[in-house]
């Protein structure tokens, strides 16, 4: 026994002393992509192996629950160290979150970021968008060309049953209408699956409106809210034709139902974003689909979807007690050839702004998405905050939106569901929003902000071409 005691003491010392000297830091990361949980575990395991003193937990919550939970976490001083967020104004998310007091710089003061900043294409870090006084508060996560709405997904079997080939998809609005008539006549299956609940009509709307004019409700050529624009009204009328001719799945359905309809072979076509390949496969076990560019008006494409600086989505919390470790994790996940980029792209969760998407993506459907994106469906839009820095402090756009959230989508869904006219309602929406927009701008200008409707007006911009953002940055 006497011999045993010293041995036990030595063992105790050997166990306790190193543990005391090497305190483990716990890092919490949160996001809402529940389907990516296994991928996050893999990433975390690799990071922990490389950084033995850091214990990372990556939590996910379903999107709507996440949007409710995160504010409450901040209120109760229990926020994660790193979190994912998309603001109401996607481009100005950093400003919104700074206003909320939620975020801190991505790296502690004094960190040399020279190499890190070169991981993105030139012009990716812009004052007012993701830099504040030259300090990065976020970084472009997904690329803004491929990633986004505006793709047409087709059920291969339904197309084959109708004697159609998904490799020869409809290209114009009339061709799409004809294709749908053929599908319904020959198979009895509905053609278009359109979600209408809440703001989910955006899934279809962005795709089609983006070929006629814009996927925004704001016209940067005239500097006004423009749901009453003839091009957008024509888009609405076109979509309504599918409901009138019973080519679209009837009912007031949500996006889960709409996606299930194409996955179950009850519909042939569904329009949505670049995230659908992973959603179809993981949520619906549906692989029998192909993707094509969204058909454009018969006279040719007259507009484009917005390629904005909107992909700043990961942030370091202002409440973190471990900014060094949070930075280490961000540096790790943004390595262009690191495990995060490789697995994220291999598993087709999306495209990344800091990686070679074409080289790392193996999924043929995603390769198709890359090809489609390269045809110019999305162009760089003007950015008012770059033309007038005071736009970042302005409430004009937000006040106009706040008259009624999702106003356009709710009224369009109502009109589609009930077969009603929309033009008159559209004129009323545009009038009220523009009045509020102007009124707030004038009030803010009177209070000293250097701002006017001119900050939002780019009359010479051709919406089929990239706006020269550098011309604003240089100013």
């Amino acid at each position: 026994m006497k011999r045993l005691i010293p041995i036990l003491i030595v063992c105790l010392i050997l166990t306790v002393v190193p543990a005391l000297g090497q305190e483990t830091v716990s890092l919490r990361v949160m996001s809402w992509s529940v389907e990516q949980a296994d991928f996050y575990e893999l990433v975390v395991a690799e990071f922990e192996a490389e950084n033995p003193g850091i214990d990372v937990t990556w939590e996910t919550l379903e999107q709507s629950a996440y949007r409710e939970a995160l504010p409450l976490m901040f209120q109760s001083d229990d926020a994660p160290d790193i979190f994912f967020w998309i603001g109401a104004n996607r481009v100005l998310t950093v400003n919104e979150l700074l206003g909320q007091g939620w975020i801190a710089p991505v790296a502690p003061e004094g960190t040399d970021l020279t190499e890190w900043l070169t991981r993105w294409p030139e012009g990716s870090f812009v004052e007012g968008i993701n830099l504040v006084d030259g300090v990065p508060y976020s970084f472009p996560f997904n690329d803004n060309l491929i990633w986004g709405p505006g793709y047409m997904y087709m059920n291969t079997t339904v197309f084959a049953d109708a004697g159609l080939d998904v490799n020869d998809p409809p290209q114009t609005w009339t061709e799409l209408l004809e294709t749908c008539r053929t599908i319904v006549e020959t198979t009895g299956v509905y053609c278009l699956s359109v979600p209408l609940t809440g703001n989910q009509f955006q899934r279809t709307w962005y795709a089609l409106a983006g070929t006629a004019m814009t996927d925004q409700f704001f016209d940067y050529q005239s500097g006004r809210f423009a749901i009453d624009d003839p091009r957008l009204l024509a888009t609405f009328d076109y979509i309504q034709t599918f409901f009138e001719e019973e080519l679209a799945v009837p009912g007031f359905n949500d996006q889960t139902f709409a996606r299930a309809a194409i996955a179950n072979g009850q519909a042939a076509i569904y329009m949505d974003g670049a995230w659908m390949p992973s959603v179809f496969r993981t949520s619906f076990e549906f692989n029998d689909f192909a993707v094509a560019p969204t058909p454009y008006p018969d006279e040719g494409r007259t507009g484009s979807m917005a390629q904005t600086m909107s992909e700043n989505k990961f942030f370091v919390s202002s409440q973190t007690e471990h900014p060094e470790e949070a930075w280490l994790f961000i540096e790790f996940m943004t390595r262009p050839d690191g495990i995060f980029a490789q697995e994220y792209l291999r598993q087709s969760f999306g495209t990344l702004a800091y990686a070679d998407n074409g080289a790392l993506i193996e999924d043929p459907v995603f390769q198709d998405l890359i090809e489609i994106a390269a045809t110019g469906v999305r162009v760089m839009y003007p950015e008012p905050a770059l033309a007038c820095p005071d736009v970042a402090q302005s409430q004009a756009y937000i006040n106009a939106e706040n008259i009624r959230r999702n106003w356009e989508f709710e009224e369009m869904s109502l009109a589609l569901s009930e077969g009603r006219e929309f033009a008159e309602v559209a004129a009323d929406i545009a009038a009220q929003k523009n009045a509020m927009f102007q009124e707030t701008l004038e009030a803010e200008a009177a209070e000293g902000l250097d701002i006017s409707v001119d900050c939002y007006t780019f009359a010479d911009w051709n919406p089929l071409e990239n706006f020269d953002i550098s011309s604003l940055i240089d100013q």
Partner: protein
Amino acid sequence: MTQIGLNRSTAVGVKSPRRRTRRKEIPYSQRVQGRNFLWVYAFLAPFLVLYIGFTLWPLLATVIYSFFDWNGSTPLTDFVGLENYITIARDQSFWLSFWNTLVFAALNTAIKLPLSLFIAILLTRRWMWFKRIFRTVFFAPLVIPVAMAGLIFTFLMNPAFGAINDAVEQFGLVERPINFLGADLALLSLTLVSVWQIFGQYMIYWMAALQNVPEELYEAASIDGATEWQKLVHVTIPIIRPVAIIILFLSFVNALKVFGLVVAMTGGGPGQTTYVVSYFIYSQAFQSLPFRYGYASAAAVLFGITVLIAVSMQGIFVRRASGEGGSGS
């Protein structure tokens, strides 16, 4: 028509007609003293702490927030007085959702209570078979989560693939599928799904109330030749009236809080046809930045006052029905 030999005073007379007693003074010797006094508060403390923390404080905080322009996380500094209330008074979406909520609650109560009473009466009859099975069947929807119920009915009610439309079409009741979640029917559909889910609970309330009706009264009524309807009107309802009023208000106030079904089935649409106050508050507080907690709090306070009025009326009506309020006795 045979008149049964029971008048209202006889029916109610099961209880003593006037029981207005003067509250007695508790003798000093029976009052809690010394250590016992501490024990009383020691046992009360956990409840009081929870009540203050999770009921009183949130209520008070909501009232305070309603006077601020607040996004939920920055310091509470931007006092705006009654501005939130003034804006709400002009907000058409709020008043629409307020009206929809009242319609939903009234419809829900009007359908649910008679239906659940009818089923409860059937299930308390001696001649009824398989009572326990029916009770379980009617109660079962209550244990299904609201979100799940909403999802199920979204599929059942779909005009293209829904089983309900299939059934009514096959029976030749309609020529074209019914758009249950269209603008004209969405609020009614929500109401019916809500009734389906909750009416088992009210059936249990009614069954508990019906047990207060002495069987001898039914026997006496039967001897007098009363029909089942006459027994219901002249025996059952007068006796269960005070409890019925409590159930009525309970049902109405609970229905005012509708939220989950709206989120799961319609998201407030089409347009805003199924916007209810809870959904309005939720959309203002949570749906996108910048959060409008102050504004949402003002809406919650206004709505809370409505519920408070409804609850207060309950007391008045119950006292009247019990005969303690004056004219009823």
